[in-house]
Structures are given as C-alpha cells and as structure tokens.
C-alpha cells in the first residue's frame, strides 16, 4: 500500500493545500478537536473525533439561499450561490463518513438540494481509520468497520506511517495527484494495529448493542410504548444532540431584514425545539415527550422504513458525551429493545 511517513505528513498537507482548500482536524486550546482550514504548521489532531461533526462541510449551520433587494416597492431576487471550489477534508472518521451516505439519501433524492449537491461534488473525503475507539463508540451496531472506513480515500496509521487506500474513482484521482510524495510501504505493523483495534471493538461497553428490535416494521409498537414518558422526562428540549449529530438534517428557512434588503437563509433546526415545524395552526408536536419520541423514532424507525432498513444513526457517540442530562439514543434503544 502507498504510504507516507508520519514526519512528512505536513509536507503532504502543504502540497494538497497549495492546490485546493484542505480541512484537517486540529486540537483547539481546550483540547477538543475541530475541523480547520489547513494553514502551514498545523498538526493533525490525535483525538478520536471532532465535537462538531463533518456534516458542516455540506450542510452548514447557516446558509444564505437568496437575497431580495427592496427598492421602493420593487423587489429583486438575487441568487447568491457561489461557485464552490474543490476541497479536501482530511481525517473524517468512519461514522461521519457513513453519515454522508445518510445525508445524501435526504438531500440528493428528488427534489435535489442543489446547495448540498454542489458542495458534495466538489469535495474529496479522506477518512482516517480508528485505532483507539472510545467507550461511547457503537458504530459497529450499524454495521460499520471503523478500521476500514468509507470515503474517497481511507488512511491508516500504524504510528509511524500513514497508508492510503483508494475507495472511489475520485479517491483514485486524488492519490494519483499526490503519488509523487508517496511510496510503497510494508503493512505488517499496520495489520497488527488493525487487529488490535478490532479486538478492542469487541470489548467496547456498547459492543453488544443491537438494532434488531428496530426498523420500519416496529412502528406502532415503539410509537405507543409507555417508556417514552420516563425516557423524555429529563429532556431539556435543547438542540445539543441534534447539532452535534452527523445525521440530523432538519433546517428552518427564515428571512432576515438587513435594513437594505432581505436575506433568506436556512439554519439548522431541532425537532427537540418547541417551535419546530410550528405552522399557522400551531405545533404538530406539543409536548417534549412527542418531540423526544420524534427524534429517536426518526432515527430508529421512520428512516429505515423509508431507506431500505438503513438507520439514521452512525454510532459516533457524540450525543452520549454532549447531552446536558446524559440522555441519548443508546439509553433509548436499551429501554425499547425486545426483552425476551
């Protein structure tokens, strides 16, 4: 497999960023990881994952859709879409990489979301295989192998070298574009590292989490479960889980009056919010129980019902560590799963 030694990684980044915009994961001053536009001298984060997911690249928190210019009583509509440039994201984990497939199902099916599509097409996703999963990880429950992540290119580290594996056509082209910096490498040590990681996977506290109790066909059983009252009791109705979630894709469209025109923008919304899908007649889900149920039913029942059994969760574990009251999808799954 083609590889680059760890000490040359930054020169690789320099080379990539000379051609197109490169985003890598870096540690911020508080020790948590985030995606940042690469600038010379930045070092790749050693953290397992970023606090915010990689969905931001394709589905940013706020996005201007159109401007309306108001002059007197005339209104002019201005298309504000910018031509996206090609960009590379380096260091995406398996879970986030899988989230793109889920988001694609939403945004790229008819009617296609052209804003999203535009960014997807211009992106090259370089994933990073996991070697040290956290106790909150449960991607395996959704059929992922984090030691061989998806993406355009998968990168593996054996501690001394980074190995590059093409996974798509786009990935192949990308590797070709940097091949002068890569060399063939011995994967013996890598195999060891991967084997070790796979063994850890089996020992993870959530390794036995099962999705077999969920899916479209279980709709009424789960919808009518009495457990929701207890499960949702502590929910604060904030949007933390939604906003750190790599697969949550709901948004609101709003107009902002700048004083000299209107900006129509969309922004992330959360089904946990009391004003979510508020319409002229009021709210469709009026209690926190209903809102809470909606979020998890969507991920575990409605989404698979509409997408050939694919769940709307990738097991990244972000909501497990970020929920202010430690309520999360794992607790919901365990409470609702078949007990026999």
């Amino acid at each position: 497999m083609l590889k680059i030694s760890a000490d040359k990684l930054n020169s690789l980044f320099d080379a990539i960023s000379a051609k197109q915009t490169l985003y890598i994961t870096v540690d911020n001053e508080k020790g948590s990881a985030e995606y940042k536009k690469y600038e010379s001298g930045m070092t790749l984060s050693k953290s397992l994952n970023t606090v915010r997911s990689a969905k931001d690249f394709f589905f940013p928190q706020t996005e201007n859709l159109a401007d309306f210019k108001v002059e007197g009583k005339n209104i002019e509509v201005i298309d504000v879409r910018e031509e996206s440039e090609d960009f590379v994201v380096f260091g995406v984990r398996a879970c986030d990489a899988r989230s793109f497939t889920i988001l694609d199902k939403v945004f790229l099916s008819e009617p296609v979301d052209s804003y999203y599509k535009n960014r997807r097409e211009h992106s090259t996703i370089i994933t990073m295989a996991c070697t040290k999963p956290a106790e909150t990880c449960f991607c395996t429950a959704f059929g992922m192998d984090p030691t061989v992540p998806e993406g355009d290119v998968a990168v593996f580290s054996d501690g001394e070298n980074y190995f590059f594996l093409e996974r798509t056509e786009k990935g192949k082209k990308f590797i070709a574009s940097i091949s002068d910096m890569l060399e063939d490498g011995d994967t013996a040590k890598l195999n060891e590292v991967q084997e070790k990681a796979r063994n850890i996977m089996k020992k993870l506290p959530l390794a036995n989490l099962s999705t077999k109790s969920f899916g479209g066909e279980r709709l009424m059983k789960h919808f009518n479960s009495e457990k929701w009252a207890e499960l949702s009791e502590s929910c604060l109705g904030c949007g933390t889980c939604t906003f750190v979630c790599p697969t949550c894709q709901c948004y609101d469209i709003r107009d902002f009056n700048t004083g000299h025109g209107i900006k129509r923008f969309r922004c992330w919304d959360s089904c946990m919010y009391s004003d979510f899908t508020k319409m002229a007649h009021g709210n469709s889900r009026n209690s926190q129980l209903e809102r809470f149920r909606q979020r998890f039913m969507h991920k575990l029942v409605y989404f698979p019902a509409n997408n050939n059994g694919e769940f709307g969760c990738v097991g990244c574990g972000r909501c497990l560590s970020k929920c202010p009251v430690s309520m999360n999808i794992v607790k919901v799954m365990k409470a609702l799963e078949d007990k026999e």
Partner: protein
Amino acid sequence: MQVNENFEPVIVAFCCNWCSYAGADLSGTNRLNYPANVKIIRVPCSCRVNPMFILRAFQKGADGVIICGCHPGDCHYTSGNYFTRRRITLLYSMLDFLGIERNRTRLEWVSAAEGAKFADVMNQFTEDVRKLGKNRRLEDLRCRKQ
C-alpha cells in the same frame, strides 16, 4: 488611531418624553447646533429602553447609542430613571467586558431646561464616536452596507 474625516457615524439617541426630549426641543428652539448624525427616538421614560434596543441599533448599523433621561430624583414617574441607571450601568459594563469600545455608549441626564447641555452632549458624543470609527465589534455583517 487614524481618524477618517469623511466618516459619518450613525447615532441613535433614546430620549425620555418629559425631560430630555423636551431638552432636545429646547436646544432646537434656541437654535443650538449639534450634528445631524444624531437621530432621536422618543420613549416615555428612560426606563423604557430595553438593552435589546441598544444591541439592535448596533446590529443594524448604529455606531453609537446614547440614552437621555430626567436627572435622578426628577423622574416624571418618580423612580424610572433609577432603574435605568442600574440596568444601563450593568449593560455598558458588560459591553465593555466584551471589548466593545466604551465611548460608543453613553447615558446622560438632561432636563427640559437644559437645551444647551443637550447640544453639548450630542456634539461631544458624536465627536467621540467619530474618533472610534465604524462599529465593527458589535456589527452584523449581513447588515453591512455595500
């Protein structure tokens, strides 16, 4: 700091109906000049001024915000300006804490008889804000004029 001579700050002045708005009228009656940058919004009492109004002004492009009310003890509603004083002191202190320039905000007590003071205050405040230049630290980029 470099002063841009051509920069014309947008200044919002909230004036209480009973003292400061009348003071502003008096400075007009006495033909006392102050810059046209100052635009007055009439409120019943300085205690009607919600911190949200002040932030809103900065968001939409104001470079300075000044609140004027009756002198303490003279409030038409007996105690309104005492509440104003506490609220606005704390708010201005918070804006300062966030690094917003101190001279962009002010509170002055101007009575109905103090037309000259009103003009002086507005002249001084406009100059102070002009020196600071455009509000950048508390602006909404979407509202920036092209």
